[in-house]
């Protein structure tokens, strides 16, 4: 059962980017318009559950946001104490604006907003915050809570991001076609970061709200760009990863490695949807990194057990992925897959090449993987030392406890 309040929130979140798109299209002033839309959304969240939905919710929001924008621009103008041509223009246009067909431009507007919020002039943290507010329709307080940051910090981050967009003078429109591919990569990367942030804490509180939101936004992008393989790949990767969520941690927060997870807890519906997406995307050829990662996740999700997993195929896919970008975590995963398909020694040989990598120097993952492979190879003392070293490097308490427990297991018997 959802309450009227929750139903309203769902509707508002879906309408948010379309309202903002419509308001910016009519009046410009992306930064102030975004504030006005937030206020209109808040007003609706208070009123609709009580009074019922208006006949045309989208039109209601655009009208209220437009009026609010006019007020804000007037106040700004008065504050500056001088004539503000833009402000007057907005007010004049408001009176003249025809009752446009809002839905036709809605889809394009959502994409344009995504491109705008993920503008390369912004640092990633700002791209994320602005995307969640302007496209996701989340309030600043919700975003701050999700990222465990004070609300004042998030407010400043969003305000500064909007100022930068205003100062950069980018028009509200689709990027030039020559830039489209690179800009879309930035959008997908931002959604990927929102998703991984939901897993970053590894501990209480679990931030499922972030993964849910990332999937919702990835779905929108896939719907708007159904022929883009990487948009499909990213959505598939998220679904296939999220499918394992319930099995990933014990009730006390201890991480459970995939080999020991209860596969009955995996979400079959999400797996089916993810597999279908990745199969369709791969059939188009020339897969990008999200599609490869989704293909790997699909092989894991479809395997009845760790032993019955198609490790040679996973190792081959990681080799392809390693060739696309120089990422030490990909190299670690490749080593694990090689160890599973050709034996722990082959995996340990690959790890040797990562020893000097500065990017992993303080990370727990290299010693943790080495410990695991040494344990598989029967070298208990060396495995124990590596687990202890990994535990010292890990940041979260559940992970430190897990790695120490693996070390302790190798204590008692010979």
């Amino acid at each position, binding site marked *: 059962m959802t309450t009227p309040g929750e139903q309203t929130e769902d509707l508002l979140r879906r309408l948010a980017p379309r309202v903002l798109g419509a308001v910016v299209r009519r009046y410009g002033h992306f930064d102030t318009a975004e504030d006005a839309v937030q206020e209109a959304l808040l007003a609706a969240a208070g009123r609709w559950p009580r009074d019922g939905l208006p006949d045309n919710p989208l039109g209601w929001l655009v009208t209220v946001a437009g009026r609010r924008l006019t007020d804000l621009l007037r106040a700004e103008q008065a504050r500056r104490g001088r004539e503000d041509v833009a402000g007057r223009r907005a007010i004049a246009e408001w009176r003249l604006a025809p009752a446009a067909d809002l839905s036709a431009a809605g889809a394009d507007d959502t994409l344009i907003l995504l491109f705008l919020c993920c503008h390369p002039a912004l640092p990633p943290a700002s791209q994320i915050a602005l995307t969640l507010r302007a496209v996701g329709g989340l309030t600043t307080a919700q975003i701050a809570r999700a990222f465990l940051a*004070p609300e004042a910090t998030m407010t400043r981050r969003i305000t500064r991001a909007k100022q930068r967009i205003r100062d950069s003078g980018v028009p509200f429109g689709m990027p030039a076609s020559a830039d489209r591919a690179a800009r879309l990569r930035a959008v997908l990367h931002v959604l990927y970061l929102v998703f991984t942030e939901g897993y970053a804490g590894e501990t*209480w509180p679990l931030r499922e709200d972030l993964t849910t939101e990332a999937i919702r936004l990835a779905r929108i992008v896939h719907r708007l760009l159904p022929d883009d393989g990487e948009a499909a790949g990213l959505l598939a990767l998220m679904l296939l990863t999220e499918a394992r969520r319930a099995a990933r941690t*014990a009730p*006390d927060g*201890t991480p459970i490695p995939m080999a020991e997870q209860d596969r009955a807890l995996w979400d079959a519906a999400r797996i089916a949807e993810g597999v279908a997406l990745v199969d369709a995307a791969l059939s188009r050829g020339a897969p990008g990194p999200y599609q490869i990662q989704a293909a790997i996740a699909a092989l894991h999700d479809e395997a009845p057990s760790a032993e019955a997993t198609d490790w040679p195929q996973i190792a081959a896919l990681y080799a392809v992925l390693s060739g696309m970008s120089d990422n030490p975590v990909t190299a670690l995963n490749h080593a694990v897959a090689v160890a599973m398909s050709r034996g722990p020694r082959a995996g340990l040989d690959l790890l040797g090449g990562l020893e000097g990598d500065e990017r992993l120097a*303080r990370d727990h993952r290299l010693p943790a993987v080495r410990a695991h492979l040494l344990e598989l190879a029967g070298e208990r003392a060396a495995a124990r030392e590596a687990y*202890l070293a990994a*535990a*010292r490097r890990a*940041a979260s*308490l559940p992970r*430190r*406890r897990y790695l*120490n*427990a693996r*070390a*302790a297991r190798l*204590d008692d018997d010979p």
Partner: protein
Amino acid sequence: MKYMIMLYGSQQDYDVLAGRPGGGPVWSADDVAAMHAFMAEWNDDLVKSGEFVDAQGLTAPVHARRIRLREGVPVVTDGPYAETEEVLAGYTIVECDGFDRATEIAARLARTPHPQGAAQAHEWYVDVRPIAGSPAELEL
């Protein structure tokens, strides 16, 4: 008026909490869960009463870096603390009616459950300090 409530721990304390084998008795999963539940309730009460401002926990002291000046040049040292040296482990900032209320909030932490076996190497304590720049500071 804002106050910072500060908790301390040494690398040794962090290791015992994380179940590192080799030393004495360590915390069990149930011990950790009981401690988390207590801390969560303490925190939630502050959120509900509107006194909560911010809280953060810090990673183990081995992850710390110290920057010092050596002949005018900043030099970085990793893990500058001794194993048993107590350092800031986490803090909670509250905004409440005066030092006595902040002290009362902090004192509730004295009931934090901890396992009988894993004796603390140090006497338990928590510090409360007024944050500079609050309006009430002028009245002191």
